Structure formats: structure tokens, C-alpha cells
């Protein structure tokens, strides 16, 4: 059966306000998620570049598990499986932010670890020889230098996380992809709506890349 419709831009245009609402949610989740991810990544990255007997392997397992499973599965697990096992409720939004946070945290952990390891070991020695304690050396000497090295990786991870939020549609978070799917089911204008969706993601990420690159230059 041949069921074709002529592409009509007006549908692409008309769906945009609805998608922009989703974009707000997308950005909300991405920003909170990456902030959470940065905190997790910073702490676990610091632990992983140290030598703690218990914490070091534990954080290693965290990174391995997250990197070894898809984000969509992590979101499903957080939203459905864990609340069911532990008998509590979690909103889709919270689960979504947690999923992005835990997921990006593992990658940021590696970014942080790599950056810390690439700071000249002489810097730590200089701090040590001045009588500073390990915490002071880390916060005043190592991290400010490591942060500059992390920047490109962090910016990159932010863009990745923005795009990753689209996977949260499986747990019903009203982000942009979810809004698009809903629009498709009410208008049946699959091609027009998804075209609008792709264009909006593209514009959003291009703009973010531009802004992040500018910020990165300023920080250097």
C-alpha cells in the first residue's frame, strides 16, 4: 500500500514551539546532570588518581560498570528496577538527572584522572617541600592546573550529555525528543516533526559548542 504524504514545511514550523518547551527540559536535565556528573567525576577522579586501598577499586568498578552499559539501560534501571527493588518512588525527571549525572560522572572521572596525571610531578614535589599537606597541594597546586587541561574534555562531555538526554524519552521525561514523538503521534507528520527535531538539536549544540569554545579560550 502506498501511503506517502507530501513534505510540508508548515508542519515543521508549527511544531517548533512545542519542541522548544522540550528543549528547556533538555537543557535543565543536561545542566543539572552535568553538574552532578562533575561533582561525582571530580571526587572519583581524585580518588582514582590516588592510592586508597578501598575507595580506589570501588570507584574503578563504578567507572567500569557505567562505561560497560548503555545510558538507556541505566535510565531504565534507575527509573524502574531500583525503585521496585527498594520500594520507593522516583520521578522520571529525577531519575533522568541521576542517569545523566552518574553516566557523565564516569567519563568525567577519567577526564579528571587524566588531567591530574598530566600535571608535572615536580609541582606536587614543590608543594610537598614547602610543607603543604596533601589536601593543600591538591586544591592549591594540582587542581587549578589540572582544570585547564580538563576544559576541552569537560566541554565535549557537556555536548554529549545534551544529546544523551534524548535517550531519556524511554522513561517518559518530557524532553525534546519525547515532545517530538508526542507531536508525531497526534499529527502523523513524522518526517516534518523529526526534521524540526534534528534541526533544533543541531542548532542547540552548535551554539553550545561555540559558547563553550569561547569560554574555554577565556579560561586559558
Amino acid at each position, binding site marked *: 500500500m502506498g501511503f506517502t504524504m507530501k513534505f510540508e514545511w508548515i508542519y515543521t514550523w508549527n511544531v517548533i514551539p512545542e519542541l522548544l518547551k522540550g528543549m528547556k527540559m533538555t537543557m535543565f536535565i543536561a545542566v543539572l546532570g552535568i553538574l552532578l556528573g562533575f561533582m561525582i567525576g571530580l571526587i572519583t577522579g581524585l580518588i582514582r588518581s590516588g592510592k586508597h586501598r578501598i575507595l580506589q577499586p570501588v570507584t574503578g568498578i563504578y567507572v567500569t560498570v557505567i562505561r560497560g552499559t548503555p545510558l538507556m539501560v541505566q535510565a531504565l534501571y534507575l527509573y524502574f528496577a531500583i525503585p521496585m527493588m527498594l520500594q520507593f518512588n522516583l520521578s522520571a525527571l529525577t531519575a533522568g538527572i541521576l542517569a545523566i549525572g552518574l553516566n557523565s560522572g564516569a567519563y568525567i572521572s577519567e577526564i579528571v584522572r587524566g588531567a591530574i596525571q598530566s600535571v*608535572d610531578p*615536580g609541582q606536587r614535589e614543590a608543594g*610537598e617541600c*614547602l*610543607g603543604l599537606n596533601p589536601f*593543600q597541594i591538591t586544591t592549591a597546586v594540582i587542581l587549578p*592546573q589540572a582544570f*585547564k587541561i580538563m576544559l576541552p574534555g569537560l566541554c565535549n562531555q557537556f555536548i554529549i550529555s545534551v544529546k544523551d538526554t534524548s535517550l531519556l524519552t524511554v522513561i517518559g521525561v518530557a524532553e525534546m525528543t519525547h515532545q517530538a514523538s508526542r507531536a508525531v503521534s497526534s499529527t502523523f507528520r513524522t518526517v516534518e516533526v523529526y526534521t524540526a527535531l534534528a534541526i533544533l538539536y543541531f542548532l542547540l549544540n552548535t551554539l553550545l559548542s561555540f559558547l563553550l569554545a569561547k569560554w574555554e579560550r577565556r579560561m586559558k
Partner: protein
Amino acid sequence: MSEAILKIENLSKSYGELEVLKDMNLEVKEGQVISVIGPSGSGKSTFLRCMNLLERPNSGTILYNGKNVMEKHYEKRELHKEVGMVFQRFNLFPHKSVMDNIILAPKKLKLGSKETLKEQALFLLEKVGLESKAEEMPKNLSGGQQQRVAIARALAMNPKVLLFDEPTSALDPELVGEVLKVMQDLAKEGMTMIVVTHEMGFAREVSDHVIFMEGGYIVEEGKPEEVFSNPQNERTKKFLSSVL
């Protein structure tokens, strides 16, 4: 004679199978300037780095003011507050200005108010001839200037002993003199110094005691005029004839 401020007994260090220091002994008295010379790979730097526990010796004792710093529960930060170090590659903090490099540690360790510390830093900068560079970033300074800042930074902790790990080896030849001059001034003021160096002129003119190391051993030691003018050991003779 005064008591030794630093006393090293039977110190050895190995990396796996490789023994880099064998049965080292050294006594450092207050105000003494000791130069450690010898070919590359002879263990000079490792010896120096063992003295302030940047490298952990495998055996032996290090007594600082009579206290064994190799004991298990000794807090090595206490040693670092009194035994400063100047590195071959300066190791200034690149993200901090000259002033902040100098006051960072004293500020963190609450050794004085910010104003007092800044005043002291300016005094030290004047001493190394860099009072006009307080607000510069390290990368805008020449190697010789950076090393002088590093010396000022170490002095800001009011160390009792200063260790120098080849302080002029990373410098362009024309910048060596300015750093040696600062070190010479310190020696005159009575700072206790242990200097690993390739500058034979400095070792000969400024130090009270010279140690010649090779293959992880102290091959010969003594007053500079003895070691330089009348070396007893064949290896010392060979080394000196190749560098002088």
C-alpha cells in the same frame, strides 16, 4: 664544633634490583655548605632527595637535629617545613604570580598575616634582585629569574637547611652566574646548604666540604682545596680532569 644538624648513617636506596645508593654517610653542621659532585647517574640527586624524604631510602638512618626522620610515625611535613629544596627545573607554580608563589605555603601554614608575609616576600625578592617582578607570572621570566624566585620561595619558609638539586643545570650559560651569586650570598649569611652541582667553580670557591660520588658511593670527600688540588682517588682524578 657544633652538633650536626643533619646526620646520615648507612643510607642505601635501590629501585628494584638496581642499587643507586650504597652505605652513604654524611654529617652536616650548621652553617656548612656542602657540594656534591660527580658524573651523571652517580646517585647525587637521589642522595639529595633522600635527605628530605622525597625518595624513601631502603635502609639507614637520617637524623635531623638528633631526631630519626625515618621512623615510621615521623611526620615528614615537619621536616619539609625546615629543610627547603630548590629544583633543577624550578617547579614554580605556573598559575600563580611571583608574589603568590612565595606566599602560598606560608599563608596556607598560617605563618603570619597576609601583610607581613607580603612584606617578607618583597624583602626576599629584593634579596634575589627581583623586587620589580612581584606581580609577573613565572612564564614571563627568564630561567635565571625563575630560579631566583624559587630560591626566594624556599627562603620564605625560613628553612634551617636548603637543598639544591642542580640549580643551574637547566639554565642558559649566561644566566648561571646570577643564580650562583644569590647562592653565594646565602652561604655568606650562614645558611646551611647542600648543593648537587656541576659548577666546579662554585664547589671550589663557596663550599666548605666537597663530596665526590660515583656509582652510588661516596668515593672521596674533603675540603675543596684538597679534593680539587690533590685528589687521592683515581676516579676523582679522572672526573676532575674531564670537567676542569
